[in-house]
């Protein structure tokens, strides 16, 4: 049961993204604001820092693949981006201190990078025609604020929970 709790939590977060997406966009200050939930990515990022990086890569690949298959229908984007961004995060964290606030900020920055790459890709294949400034005002700012709320609420509980889990799993 203890082994299963992480995958089950991951699956629940995966499904919750699809449901959150049904409430977006919302209209704020006279324009549509798209709130893109990136909870799954944040979960995987925290796993890589506070649990085991190997597990995080596997989760990134498997959930990224499911994400592509089920939600976007273009296989390959998130399958590669999730593990890649985890790799970048770990490389950066080798250089700086692992405080939970630092990890939270890093999460926000990496979400911005993720959004930008996905925007460029969709622009390239002609799925979207919006220009960069519209992308910033309609999507990026709102998305970053939305995900910061998630980090504010859950970063510390995640840290405690995952470090605990790691210790109990190492003792087994």
């Amino acid at each position: 049961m203890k082994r299963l709790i992480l995958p089950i939590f991951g699956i629940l977060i995966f499904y919750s993204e699809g449901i959150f997406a049904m409430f977006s966009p919302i209209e704020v200050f006279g324009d549509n604001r798209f709130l893109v939930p990136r909870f799954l990515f944040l979960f995987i990022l925290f796993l890589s820092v506070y649990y085991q990086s190997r597990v995080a890569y596997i989760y990134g690949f498997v959930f990224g693949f499911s994400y592509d298959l089920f939600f976007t229908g273009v296989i390959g984007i998130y399958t590669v981006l999730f593990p890649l961004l985890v790799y970048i995060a770990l490389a950066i964290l080798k250089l700086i201190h692992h405080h939970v606030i630092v990890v939270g900020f890093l999460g926000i920055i990496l979400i911005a990078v993720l959004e930008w790459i996905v925007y460029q890709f969709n622009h390239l294949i002609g799925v979207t025609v919006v220009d960069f400034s519209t992308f910033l005002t309609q999507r990026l700012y709102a998305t970053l604020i939305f995900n910061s709320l998630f980090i504010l609420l859950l970063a510390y509980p995640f840290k405690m929970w995952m470090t605990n889990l790691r210790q109990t799993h190492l003792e087994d």
Partner: protein
Amino acid sequence: MPPFFMNKRLIVLLLGIILLVALIGFSLRERENISWPEQFAKDMIGFGQNIVAKPAGYAQGLIGNVQDLTNAYTENQKLKSRLDELAQIEADVNNLTRDNEELRAILDIEEDLREFHVVNATVINGNPDQWQELITINKGQVNGIEPNMAVQTASGMIGRVKDVSQFTSTVELLSSSNPNNRVSALIQADETDEADDVTGTVEGYDPERKELMVKKIDSGEQVEVGSKVITSGMGGVFPKGILIGVVTEVSPDEYGLTQTAYVEPASSLYGMEHVMVVERIAAGQKDIDKDAETREAEEDEGEEEDE
């Protein structure tokens, strides 16, 4: 082997890029429906999503109910004023339906592009990254849904079925900028006379105006602001007469050869909970082709037997 290839990380990276490009190419190519492994995986994931979406749907319904309560009084007033007209309209509709049936019987017309039946479905999730305007519904091939069917809500058309697996299907909304996402449309200049209808295709969406664009309207045609836009039932599997929206502005295109009409969608394209997938009863071109093929095959068999 040179040391360049000994670097394990580099090989993983290179293989990853090749895999990425191959997979993207595979999923972006033109195709009728997704392949069976994709269908299978979608069904597996969709099964869980279906379960998770239920309590979320209840919560959403509850919030909706509270909002309805606050609007109840004004809504009641409005409905009361409409109620008086309703009896008259109902009588008219009955009369017209009977009339229509009789006239059809006289003319011997069996098939009607307007006739359709609907499959009711619930939206179980949106697309979280929200670039492609996709939603997933909880009905699939087993419920008789096929690719390219029209999808509507009670107030109007919202999109078409993009791909289908056994138990779920993905719907592409009209607001998508996908160039393949086209709907043949009719602009009703005068609601009583069909001869005045103007044809065009719904092509693309203006994200800043939040309106659909009906392009390729002949520049000689007069399109008035406020005219209704419906599906034409031409080419494909859509029935005729599903409301798409109302014209808000007409402007000539850059070369002045055709006009573009901006259309406000009749149904909100966001936040819908229940949708209807529309199946036309009249045979489409594909069914006719299939019939012809089977007939030919039967004839071939017959010939072989003769020999």
